[in-house]
């Protein structure tokens, strides 16, 4: 082996070993969190803080619904479930024991008489206080009323009793609800956020699964539905593993069979496997060295480079002549290979400037993977004589090649060039059907869909909407929360929203407390009010309004305290408000349009917006790099040759996106990423044929055809996957490769004949 070869080999080995060390010692970690895909939010942005908080909460939240036709049984089993869950450890039960109305009593005591339900407040405000007087009178005589003299002196209208009951209904997370002759008792838990990912969570989920099974088995007619992000991740992980296993086995088998069929030998198979392994290992090692946290999407995309780098090995083995050494073969195809490698690397390198984590990782993975695999074919394979086959392909497809070239000869490539330019412009203008909805990327199985639909319908927590109310002071924010409560009141009565959960519900604004106190005083001084006053001891005039200051808030349960957001560095503040049981008929958009200080905190929407940004940035990078490479080719090879060669990958890339959109595969971030692969593959097909010596044109055509078949096999399998991301990428690459292969003989007709 030459000195260069030794240096190259040693360098590669060192890189891979160092990368492995980083991975195995945990210095570089794999992450699957969707939030990691996008740039870190600025700390000055209150919405980003809220989003981060809510995303963390949702990603660890599991919602259970225990159903039975009898309310007590549903409640009992939910209680048992709660107790058992507590024993598992690392699981926090929401509601239940943590929020009890008794906890509020001490806080509220001085302000009793100035606290009322929204309904009572509204009754007072609209001048219908008579009804409250009558209610109070009646409750004096009712056996179920818990009035006592001190309470009635402080609150003759019984406002606080009602208020406390409403709070109890809102915060009693365990209360069973009746739908269609069954009672549903909810249990909501969070798996500890401080734990490192995966294993421990997975173990807990397995314990939970067993627990649910045993509770259902032990209580006939009890059904426990449960869902949430951790449960979804667990299911998806199971599906992904099985899919990955199936696809890998099928893809590898298909390529091996194809290579054995083509070369009638195992040596090219081993050579191809070696090339692929080097590409994948070096790409992974480089990514591990450059990045502390590597996203699994980058890894998955990197591995899909198999489809690109296997072409280099196929090209090498197909180009082998019986009368030459393997080093001579490598030298002969070197220029074409290096050209192909250079073009692909340039394409992927453009992603490094996107400013998006995952794109930068893909850029590094792809660039290192492609370069190492390509150079291995040129410098390593020829020196591993035991892997060299003395003769290239054995199956002649000359006739097909001739027919293909003749057909391509009549292609109006100028017109195709024009189509390519127009398509690129349309892509720039975002004209084609695109869908960046992150929910479209979800893996759906009938079981998951059924559970999620069920929970969304019957669980308040699952159908909740989270809003951020901003303001300059706590008092202002509380008043704005109360405005919001007023705004949704009609929707609450029409059952479009089942409840409102916010700090103002527990500590109303000072303005509202004063209003309630004053309106009650006024009412009690009326003639009707005097009748009530006559029956009861004289009213206490001492009331101390409560402020939602830090000290008072600290007496509230943690879940309520978490609703308060503050960014001290920018003095921004806001409160999260949770609208529970929001039905699809609720017009949220109009509400959001009403006030600038109110916004929805919706991780799915935010991620969809991020996907949109990332897709647009990747599309710009794709178009930019293709324009750059076109200019480079034209400069190096002349207008006609350069244009013809670049036409193959660029037409395939842009037309694929347009065609997939026309055929209903909406464009998203992943289809744009797949089109980078199409560009790399298309460039290889054109350059291999262009750079082939005149007596090698047939072999180059065949190498390209075999490469196309292998790629179609691998990505065709992906297009049948249950995982939407793989499905999209598979479909796009298959369409692109077919187009690139069909058009590639254009490059074979290049007038220069041999590349110098």
């Amino acid at each position, binding site marked *: 082996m030459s000195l260069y070869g030794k240096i190259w080999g040693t360098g590669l080995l060192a890189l891979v070993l160092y990368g492995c060390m980083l991975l195995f010692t945990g210095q570089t970690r794999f992450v699957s969190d969707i939030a990691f895909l996008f740039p870190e939010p600025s700390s000055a942005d209150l919405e980003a803080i809220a989003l981060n908080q809510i995303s963390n909460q949702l990603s660890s939240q599991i919602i259970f619904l225990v159903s039975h036709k009898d309310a007590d049984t549903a409640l009992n089993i939910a209680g048992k479930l709660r107790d058992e869950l507590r024993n598992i450890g690392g699981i926090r039960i929401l509601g239940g024991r943590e929020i009890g109305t008794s906890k509020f009593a001490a806080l509220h005591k001085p302000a009793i008489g100035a606290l009322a339900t929204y309904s009572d407040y509204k009754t007072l405000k609209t001048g219908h206080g008579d*009804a409250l007087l009558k209610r109070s009178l*009646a409750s004096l*005589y009712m056996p*179920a009323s818990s009035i*006592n003299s001190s309470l009635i002196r402080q609150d003759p209208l019984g406002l606080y009793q009602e208020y406390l009951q409403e709070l109890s209904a809102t915060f009693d997370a365990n*209360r069973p609800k009746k739908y269609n002759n069954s009672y549903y008792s909810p249990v909501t838990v969070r798996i500890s956020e401080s734990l490192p990912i995966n294993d421990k969570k997975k173990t807990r989920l397995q314990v939970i699964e067993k627990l649910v099974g045993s509770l259902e088995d032990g209580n006939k007619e009890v059904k426990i539905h449960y869902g949430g992000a951790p449960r979804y991740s667990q299911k998806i992980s199971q599906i992904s593993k099985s899919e990955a296993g199936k696809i890998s086995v099928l893809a590898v088998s298909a390529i091996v069979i194809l290579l054995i069929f083509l070369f009638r030998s195992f040596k090219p198979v081993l050579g191809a496997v070696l090339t692929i392994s080097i590409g994948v290992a070096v790409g992974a090692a480089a990514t591990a060295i450059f990045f502390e946290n590597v996203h699994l999407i980058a890894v998955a995309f990197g591995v899909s480079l198999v489809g690109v780098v296997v072409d280099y090995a196929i090209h090498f083995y197909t180009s082998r002549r019986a009368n030459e050494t393997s080093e001579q073969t490598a030298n002969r195809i070197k220029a074409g290979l290096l050209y192909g490698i250079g073009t692909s690397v340039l394409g992927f390198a453009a992603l490094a400037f996107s400013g998006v984590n995952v794109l930068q990782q893909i850029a590094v993975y792809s660039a290192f993977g492609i370069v190492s695999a390509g150079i291995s074919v040129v410098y390593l394979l020829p020196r591993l004589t035991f892997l060299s086959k003395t003769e290239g392909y054995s199956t002649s497809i000359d006739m097909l090649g001739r027919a293909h070239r003749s057909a391509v000869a009549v292609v109006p490539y100028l017109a195709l060039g024009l189509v390519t330019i127009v398509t690129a412009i349309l892509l720039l203008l975002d004209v084609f059907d695109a869908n960046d909805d992150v929910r479209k990327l979800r893996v759906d199985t009938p079981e998951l869909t059924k559970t999620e639909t069920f929970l969304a319908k019957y669980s308040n927590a699952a159908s909740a909407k989270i809003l951020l109310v901003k303001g300059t002071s706590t008092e202002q924010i509380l008043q704005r929360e109360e405005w919001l409560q007023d705004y949704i009141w009609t929707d609450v009565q029409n059952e479009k929203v089942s409840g409102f959960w916010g700090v103002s519900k527990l500590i109303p604004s000072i303005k509202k407390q004063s209003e309630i106190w004053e309106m009650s005083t006024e009412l009690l001084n009326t003639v009707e009010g005097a009748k009530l006053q006559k029956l009861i*001891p004289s009213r206490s005039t001492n009331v101390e309004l409560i402020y939602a200051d830090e000290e008072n808030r600290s007496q509230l349960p943690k879940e309520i305290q978490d609703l308060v957001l503050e960014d001290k560095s920018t003095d921004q503040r806001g409160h999260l408000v949770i609208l529970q049981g929001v039905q699809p008929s609720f017009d949220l958009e109009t509400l959001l349009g009403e006030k600038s200080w109110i916004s929805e905190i919706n991780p799915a929407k935010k991620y969809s917006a991020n996907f949109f940004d990332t897709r647009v940035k990747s599309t710009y990078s794709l178009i930019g790099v293709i324009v750059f490479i076109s200019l480079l080719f034209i400069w190096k090879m002349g207008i006609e040759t350069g244009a013809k060669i670049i036409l193959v990958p660029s037409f395939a890339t842009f037309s694929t996106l347009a065609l997939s959109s026309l055929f209903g595969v909406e464009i998203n971030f992943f289809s744009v990423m797949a089109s980078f692969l199409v560009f790399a593959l298309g460039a290889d097909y054109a350059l291999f044929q262009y750079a082939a010596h005149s007596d090698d044109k047939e072999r180059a055509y065949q190498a390209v055809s075999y490469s196309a078949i292998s790629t179609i096999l691998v990505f065709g399998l992906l297009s049948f996957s249950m995982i939407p991301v793989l499905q999209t990428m598979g479909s796009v690459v298959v369409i692109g490769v077919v187009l690139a292969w069909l058009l590639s003989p254009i490059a074979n007709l290049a007038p220069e004949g041999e590349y110098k």
Partner: protein
Amino acid sequence: MSYLKQFVVFALFVFYTVGVVDASQIGPNEVKPGSILTGEFSQERYLNGFEAPLVSSGDFFLFPSKGLAWRVFEPFESRLIMTSEGITQITHGSIMKVAGTTGLAKLIGGLMYPALSGDWQKLKNDFEVNVEQPAATDTEWTASLRPVNETIGKIIESIELTGGTTTRSLIIFKTNGDRDEIQFKSQEILGVPTKEAINAFSIDGNN
């Protein structure tokens, strides 16, 4: 007289004078599922700090399978419906859900049926029940209930019930010194619910 005879005579004497009977057998007549207990009541509520008791009267309907409807006629008309689904108070046409399934309202709602039908076993879930029968009668009884449940114990000190074939009075002593005294009369068990009884449970604006 042999010792054995002496023992038998003594035992019979004790049995007839002290009235050793199974406490679970003592109490008002059972109101069987499907039938309905109806009657009139008068209530005096003594609240600390109030000059006079709050007096009210009306009638009630108790369906074992459904719940209790409590109709107040004096000093003004109102109605309280206690079922497993919650408590509703209807006053002057306005319908209000009371304490749902928590607190004193739930406790009172849950207490009425066993108290009026003598289901001591059920009451034992939350109270220590002590039923006594004076030796001279075979139907009169008194029962005192002391909460064993900590939450109930915070609100209720004790409950006293007296009656014969029906429960005649119920006194609730609260921990803050307040008390409710309810007297029942004209009670009867109906095999078939009357239209009036059914109407008493209807949640509409009419008292």
